[in-house]
């Protein structure tokens, strides 16, 4: 709002012409008035004057046109406020009240609502007129229809926003593409490194075998050659040496199997799980375990070797750790796209704090001298099952047996 020098009411109005008689004066006034109307119409500017004491607002012809009204009676302030766009009412009243209070003028852009409901943008200017005592008596002002300008501005702003949003979305897409590429590269590198690790484990364990076999042979030959002169202590040491060598042989075999679990793939065939389980039990030939197999185990399409290895390890563990006369139940449950197989034993069970650890490679819960074990079995089971997209788990508590379960897809996904 700019502070203009106050206008004094009742001052002389300079016309700038010399008049000789009343008629000429009237004609001149009409001409001027006509000129003013014309210029207001051309500029879309209307003018008004508000008498504060009587609350009468006189409008120019153009102003009525801008507000979509027929030229007519003067307005009241309340009627004027009523025509303002509801959201702008409070703001406008504040601006005007403040101008009156400070006897200053204002410039403001606001909206009005035409009788038929459309909105127009108005550039409103007002200035307060005071009497000689400095009391505000009138407010005069103009109103210009700036709807076209505002619309153009809004269209430009919308276009700008749209363009900005489009560019931002494009930038984000670009960024995402970059990140996806990065992830794909990382995944490929990881895959390669896993393959290399598997190949390394395979080669290393293969090469570890040859010297081990040499040691085993030499130990046996020493025992043979010294047959009669060996003391009992030496004989026991040689026996211990043999068990350690067998343990190492099993470790190497385990690592070989573990590394192969990530490499070898065979053609899926129809597998009768019931038969596969029975064959596995025969192979393990438990001495004192009682094994019951659910009669209607499914027939599935799968790679037989990994499935056999999984059962072999789980049933083997149940026999090994279950103790004398352990009871083992092998069951299957339908789980949507998967079969959920379980091997439950009546053995000593596994305390909950070990349920995570047992799946790690080289983890055993018993001293290897008490129960011969490599600590590879369950990690192999986990790797084999997860390679098929399945899951493994255990439910058990100390003293109440253990139930190892795994899910296996009903149909093999080729090219795993």
């Amino acid at each position: 709002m700019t502070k203009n020098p106050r206008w004094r009411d009742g001052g002389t109005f300079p016309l700038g012409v010399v008049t000789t008689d009343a008629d000429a004066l009237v004609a001149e006034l009409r001409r001027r008035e006509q000129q003013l109307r014309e210029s207001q119409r051309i500029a879309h500017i209307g003018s008004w004057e508000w008498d504060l004491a009587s609350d009468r607002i006189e409008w120019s012809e153009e102003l009525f046109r801008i507000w979509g009204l027929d030229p007519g009676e003067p307005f009241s302030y309340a009627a004027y406020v009523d025509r303002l766009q509801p959201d702008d009412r409070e703001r406008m009243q504040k601006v005007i009240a403040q101008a009156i209070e400070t006897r200053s003028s204002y410039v403001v852009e606001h909206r009005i609502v035409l009788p038929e409901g459309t909105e127009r943008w108005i550039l409103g200017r007002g200035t307060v007129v005071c009497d000689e005592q400095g009391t505000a008596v009138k407010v005069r002002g103009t109103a210009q229809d700036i709807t076209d300008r505002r619309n153009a501005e809004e269209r430009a702003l919308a276009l700008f926003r749209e363009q900005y949003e489009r560019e931002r979305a494009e930038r984000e897409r670009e960024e995402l593409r970059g990140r996806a590429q990065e992830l794909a590269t990382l995944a490929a590198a990881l895959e390669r490194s896993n393959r290399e690790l598997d190949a390394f484990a395979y080669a290393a364990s293969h090469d570890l075998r040859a010297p081990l076999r040499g040691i085993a042979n030499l130990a046996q030959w020493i025992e043979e050659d010294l047959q009669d002169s060996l003391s009992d202590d030496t004989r026991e040491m040689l026996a211990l040496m043999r068990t350690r060598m067998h343990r190492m042989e099993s470790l190497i075999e385990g690592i070989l199997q573990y590394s192969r679990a990530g490499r070898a793939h065979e053609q899926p065939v129809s597998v009768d799980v019931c038969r596969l389980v029975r064959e596995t039990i025969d192979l393990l030939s438990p001495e004192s375990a009682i094994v019951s197999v659910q009669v209607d185990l499914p027939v599935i399409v799968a790679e037989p070797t990994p499935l056999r290895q999984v059962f072999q390890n789980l049933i083997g563990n149940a026999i090994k750790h279950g103790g004398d006369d352990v009871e083992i139940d092998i069951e299957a449950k339908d789980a949507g796209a998967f079969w959920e197989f379980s091997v439950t034993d009546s053995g000593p069970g596994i305390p909950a704090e070990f349920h995570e650890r047992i799946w790690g490679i080289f983890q055993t819960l018993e001293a290897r001298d008490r129960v011969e074990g490599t600590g590879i079995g369950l990690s192999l089971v986990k790797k084999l099952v997860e390679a098929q997209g399945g899951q493994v788990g255990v439910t058990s508590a100390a003293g109440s047996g253990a139930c190892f379960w795994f899910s296996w897809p009903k149909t093999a996904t080729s090219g795993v």
Partner: protein
Amino acid sequence: MDEKVLNILLVEDDQVDVMNVRRAFEKNRIVNPLFIAGDGIEALEILRGGLVPAARRIVLLDLNMPRMTGIEFLRELRKDPMFMHTPVVVLTTSNDDRDKIEAYNLNVAGYLIKPVTFIDFVELMASLNKYWTLVELP
């Protein structure tokens, strides 16, 4: 039974494995002369030097050896008109299909995986010896 002498060249770099063959022969009371080469190059030298009698001669060949591997030795051997038909039996720890295919492409007479236990090895050597004693050779 007509005991025909079989001249065996064992190409093997591991001393314990050589001992293994020797002891297995002893266990089986096999008296066939056993010639030893530590790798492919030495084996070629021995063969070309005429140290192994040409009559009833077979080669027992390991694959993983320093300097010249078993497969490389076989390639050299098959190029030589003197040894094109010499029977070679592979005796290795390698269970790799590529090794098997390459060996058979080079006309080996057999491919044997070294058994893990000595007992099994003794048995294998007995069968091997028995078979080659029966086989007619040029």
